[in-house]
C-alpha cells in the first residue's frame, strides 16, 4: 500500500488549491471527491456542465475553472465519485477506508496518508418547518446543482423561502434562465437589519456587497418578494401543493409545485469530529466547527481543515485557507522551513483578510430567527428517524441532557444521514430546554463509518492487532 504525503478530502476551492499548492512544494497529494468532477458544490460541474449559456450561471461560477486547470496540471492524484468513510491513525500514517460513491459496487480498499487535509465544505442548514419533508420541498443548493449538472430548471409554481446570499443567487440564476418565480419569502425578522448595521462598516469594503445588491435588485424587479416571514408551512398530500406563511401573525396561502428553501450553510464536520478533532460552537453562525489555528491545524496532530468546514467564510476565503493549510503541512513534513512558509503565506493571508470583510455583517443579518432555529410541535427534526421537535424536547425534560443521550433516547441522529440533517437543531432544542447556551454543550460524538457501508466494505478495512485483541473469540 502506498502512502501519500497528504490526503485531501473534498475538491471544492479549498481542496483544489491545497492539492495544487502541496504538489508544487514537492508533496504527493491524493484528492478524494464524492462528486463525479472537481469543483465542490460552489463550482459543481464547472468542467462538465451542459448549460450552453455561460451568463446564466454568473461570472463567479466560471472562476472555478481557474482552480481546476492548475489542479489538473499539478500531478495530484484525483479520485472522483469516491467516499472516505473511515480514517484511523496508524504508527506511520493514517489509514483511510475508501469506497466508490455507489455502495457495494467498487471497493476502493484502503489508502494511507501522512497527513489529512479535510476540505469537506459546508452543508445547507437544515431548518425544520411543518411540511419540510414533503416531496417537492428542496434546498436551494439542490436546485442550483440540478441547473449546473443537468441544465434542469423548476417548472410550474415555484416559491423560494429563507434568507441569505445563496437564496438570492439561486433566485437570480433561475430568473435569468427564464423561470417564473411566484414568490420569494424572506425570513429575516423585523429589526434585524438595524442590529446587523453595527457590522456594516466592514461590509462596505466587502467584495460581496456590490454583487449581492445587484442580484437582489434584479430579482426584485421580476418577482414578488415578501419580507419578515415569521412562520412557514408546506402543505400537500404526498407532495407539496401549497405554502402558508405568516407575517406579523397574518397567514397567507399560495399554491406551489416546488418550494426551494435556504437558510445559509453550516460546516460539514463529521469527518474531523470522528477523527477526534475538538469542536466548538460558533455563536455568530449557530453551528459547530472544528477548533483550528490560523493555518487550519486542528487539535489532532496531522489533521488540517480548510474551507467552509473550518467555519463558513465563502469560496474566496476557501482558496486562501486551502493554500495556508498546504503550506503548514509542507512545513510540518519538513519540506519547507518556517521562514519560507511564512513568506509564501503572506499573499494568502492578505487574500483571506479581504475575503473575510463583511462576513460578520452577513452572519448577523442572516442568522435565522429563534423561532426557526428552535421549532416546536409535531414538525420532524430528524428526517431519517422522524423524531419530532416535541419528542426531542420531551426527552430532554426526561433527562436526556446531552446530545449523546438525546440520540440514545429518541434515535434523533441515528438514521442513515447520521445526524447531518438534525445536529444543529438538536443542539438548539437541547440548549433551549436546558436554558443553556449552545456553546456550553458537549460536542456530538461522531463515529466511523461516516456513511452506511456494506459488510464487504467493512471487511476490506485492515484489521489491527489492538482491534483484534478487543474481540473475544469462541473456541
Amino acid at each position: 500500500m502506498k502512502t501519500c504525503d497528504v490526503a485531501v478530502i473534498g475538491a471544492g476551492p479549498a481542496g483544489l488549491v491545497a492539492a495544487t499548492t502541496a504538489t508544487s512544494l514537492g508533496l504527493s497529494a491524493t484528492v478524494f471527491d464524492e462528486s463525479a468532477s472537481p469543483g465542490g458544490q460552489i463550482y459543481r460541474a464547472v468542467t462538465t456542465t451542459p448549460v450552453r449559456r455561460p451568463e446564466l450561471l454568473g461570472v463567479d461560477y466560471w472562476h472555478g475553472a481557474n482552480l481546476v486547470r492548475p489542479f489538473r496540471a499539478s500531478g495530484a492524484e484525483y479520485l472522483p465519485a469516491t467516499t472516505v468513510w473511515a480514517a484511523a491513525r496508524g504508527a506511520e500514517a493514517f489509514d483511510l477506508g475508501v469506497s466508490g460513491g455507489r455502495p457495494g459496487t467498487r471497493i476502493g480498499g484502503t489508502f494511507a496518508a501522512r497527513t489529512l487535509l479535510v476540505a469537506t465544505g459546508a452543508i445547507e442548514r437544515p431548518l425544520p418547518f411543518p411540511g419540510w419533508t414533503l416531496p417537492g420541498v428542496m434546498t436551494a443548493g439542490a436546485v442550483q446543482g440540478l441547473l449546473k449538472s443537468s441544465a434542469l430548471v423548476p417548472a410550474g409554481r415555484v416559491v423560494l423561502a429563507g434568507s441569505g446570499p445563496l437564496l438570492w443567487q439561486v433566485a437570480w440564476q433561475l430568473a435569468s434562465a427564464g423561470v417564473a418565480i411566484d414568490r420569494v419569502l424572506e425570513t429575516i425578522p423585523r429589526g434585524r437589519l438595524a442590529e446587523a448595521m453595527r457590522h456594516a462598516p466592514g461590509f462596505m469594503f466587502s467584495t460581496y456587497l456590490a454583487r449581492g445588491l445587484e442580484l437582489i435588485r434584479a430579482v426584485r424587479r421580476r418577482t414578488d418578494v415578501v419580507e419578515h416571514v415569521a412562520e412557514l408551512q408546506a402543505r400537500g398530500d404526498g407532495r407539496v401543493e401549497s405554502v402558508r406563511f405568516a407575517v406579523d401573525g397574518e397567514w397567507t396561502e399560495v399554491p406551489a409545485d416546488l418550494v426551494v428553501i435556504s437558510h445559509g450553510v453550516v460546516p460539514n464536520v463529521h469527518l474531523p469530529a470522528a477523527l477526534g478533532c475538538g469542536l466548538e460552537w460558533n455563536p455568530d453562525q449557530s453551528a459547530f466547527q472544528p477548533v483550528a489555528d490560523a493555518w487550519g491545524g486542528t487539535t489532532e496532530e496531522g489533521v488540517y481543515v480548510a474551507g467552509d468546514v473550518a467555519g463558513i467564510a465563502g469560496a474566496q476565503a476557501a482558496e486562501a485557507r486551502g493554500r495556508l493549510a498546504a503550506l503548514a503541512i509542507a512545513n510540518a513534513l519538513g519540506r519547507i522551513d518556517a521562514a519560507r512558509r511564512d513568506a509564501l503565506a503572506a499573499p494568502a493571508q492578505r487574500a483571506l483578510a479581504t475575503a473575510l470583510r463583511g462576513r460578520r455583517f452577513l452572519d448577523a443579518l442572516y442568522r435565522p430567527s429563534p423561532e426557526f432555529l428552535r421549532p416546536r410541535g409535531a414538525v420532524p427534526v430528524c428526517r431519517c428517524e422522524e423524531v419530532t421537535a416535541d419528542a426531542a424536547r420531551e426527552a430532554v425534560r426526561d433527562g436526556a441532557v446531552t446530545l449523546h443521550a438525546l440520540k440514545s433516547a429518541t434515535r434523533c441522529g441515528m438514521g442513515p444521514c447520521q445526524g447531518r440533517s438534525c445536529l444543529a437543531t438538536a443542539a438548539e432544542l437541547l440548549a433551549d430546554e436546558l436554558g443553556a447556551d449552545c456553546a456550553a454543550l458537549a460536542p456530538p460524538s461522531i463515529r466511523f463509518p461516516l456513511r452506511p457501508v456494506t459488510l464487504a466494505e467493512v471487511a476490506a478495512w485492515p484489521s489491527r492487532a489492538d482491534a483484534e485483541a478487543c474481540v473475544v473469540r469462541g473456541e
Partner: protein
Amino acid sequence: MFARLPETGAEAVVVAIDGADFEARAGDSVAAALLASGRLASRATPVSGAPRGPFCLMGVCFDCLITIDGVPNQRACMVEVAPGMRIDTQQGAPPLGTGAA
C-alpha cells in the same frame, strides 16, 4: 416539476424508472433523471411510510434512497445514470434478505 433548458448538448441515456423507459441525459444523477421524469418522490420511509424525494442533492440527507439495478438504498443524487439502468422507487422498509443496506 422540472424542465430541461434547450440546447444542452448532452447525449440521451435511456433508463427504466419503475419499469418505464425514460430518456435521461449523460451526466444526470439518478435523482436528476427521476425529477426530469416528473417524479418528486423516490421512496416511502421505513418508519412511517411517508413519501420522500430528493432534498439536498449533495449526498447529505439520504432522503433520495432508491433501488438501482436491484441494489436498494442507494443515494440517487450520488450515482450517475448509465444506459439500461433499472431505477426503482422504494416502498417502506424492505423485507429481510433482499440486499445490502
